[in-house]
């Protein structure tokens, strides 16, 4: 590839990552194996959940569902019946905490926004969730991104582990790469590089649609692509110019971070999937940095 990063520009990946991690919404750690398994099991049994009534003598615990009669000044807290999961904080955290430990029929008052709110527990129910089974997984009719049907609990756990982890790594990568792109001085991309990327994408889409949809998009493009005057595959490739420029910059940034040369299999002009392959290497780097922290 002829395009190069400006010589004056250097990338300190750890500095950008550190800056990202200072944000309140930042992903600081990947989920543990236990959290991933729990997430998979919650997804598998979600159609089998039952809310069973609690006996009168059993006190409410966090996670129980309470049907309340509430009276207070604000409309939100003045209802004949309102259903609340205790301890989740979606209704009012203070009231939910006060109700935990109470029994059906109990009444209490708490101060909310400077006024009293009185709540009476009309009903209490507790979630009953079965153990996940392969049959439940099959009933979900879930499939992987490449269309493979998931048939066992183990396969579903692997799927969630992969999807959840990759989505979190992708989120970190997106923000860190955006910060680097923002810091990148204005630079020109070589016109021949842009043209070749367009040709690579043209070949990729033609092959993809022939194989998966049995459509030759050289004869006519999908309806969903027809917008802003785009009628042919040539139009579509021309309209993607900004994306090819971004792809060149992203590849050069990733190569710089990874210390790899832009040649052969790592040159964006070599094959269509270079950016994706480099991105996976960056994901590994992010994973190792997060684990080290």
């Amino acid at each position: 590839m002829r395009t190069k990063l400006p010589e004056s520009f250097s990338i300190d990946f750890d500095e950008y990552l550190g800056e990202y991690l200072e944000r309140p919404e930042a992903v600081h750690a990947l989920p543990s194996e236990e959290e991933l398994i729990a997430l998979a099991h919650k997804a598998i049994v979600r159609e089998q959940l039952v809310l069973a009534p609690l006996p009168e003598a059993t006190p409410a615990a966090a996670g129980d569902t309470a049907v309340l009669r509430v009276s207070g000044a604000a409309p939100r807290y003045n209802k004949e019946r309102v259903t609340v999961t205790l301890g989740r904080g979606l209704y009012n955290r203070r009231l939910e905490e006060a109700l935990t430990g109470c029994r059906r029929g109990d009444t209490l008052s708490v101060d909310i926004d400077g006024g009293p709110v009185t709540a009476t527990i009309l009903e209490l129910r507790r979630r009953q969730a079965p153990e996940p089974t392969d049959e439940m997984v099959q009933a979900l009719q879930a499939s992987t991104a490449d269309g493979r049907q998931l048939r066992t609990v183990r396969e579903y756990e692997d799927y969630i582990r992969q999807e959840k982890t990759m989505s979190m790594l992708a989120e970190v990568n997106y923000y860190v790469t955006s910060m680097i792109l923002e810091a990148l001085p204005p630079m020109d991309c070589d016109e021949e590089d842009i043209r070749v990327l367009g040709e690579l994408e043209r070949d990729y889409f033609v092959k993809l649609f022939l194989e998966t949809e049995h459509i030759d998009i050289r004869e006519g493009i999908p309806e969903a692509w027809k917008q802003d005057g785009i009628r042919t595959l040539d139009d579509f490739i021309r309209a993607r110019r900004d994306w090819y420029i971004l792809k060149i910059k992203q590849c050069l940034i990733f190569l710089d971070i990874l210390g790899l040369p832009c040649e052969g299999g790592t040159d964006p002009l070599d094959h269509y999937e270079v950016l994706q392959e480099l991105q996976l290497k960056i994901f590994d780097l992010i994973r190792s940095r997060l684990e080290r922290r």
Partner: protein
Amino acid sequence: MTLFVEEKDFDAVTREGFWIADFMTDHCGPCKLLDMVLSELIYDDPEINLAKCDIEKSPAYVERFGISGTPTLLFLLDGEVKGRLSGAQPREVLEEKISQSMYG
């Protein structure tokens, strides 16, 4: 409760209680990410019901609810639409919308 719902059954299914209608397609990546978040929510808040609405199997949804992309979520209380979100939003954003839609 989680149900796959066709457009012709939508009103009857969502008439009572709190429902999140998830307008999705089978091959949409962000839909799968959002589905993971929704699974956790439904498990932790079992009084929330989830209607999975595949807009390819029931294209009538698109015009009826003005769905311009997937995933799109509608939040319904006793059949009335109280809120709407687009894209694979994080759990915190969904919970805020649920809190507003469910309790006013």
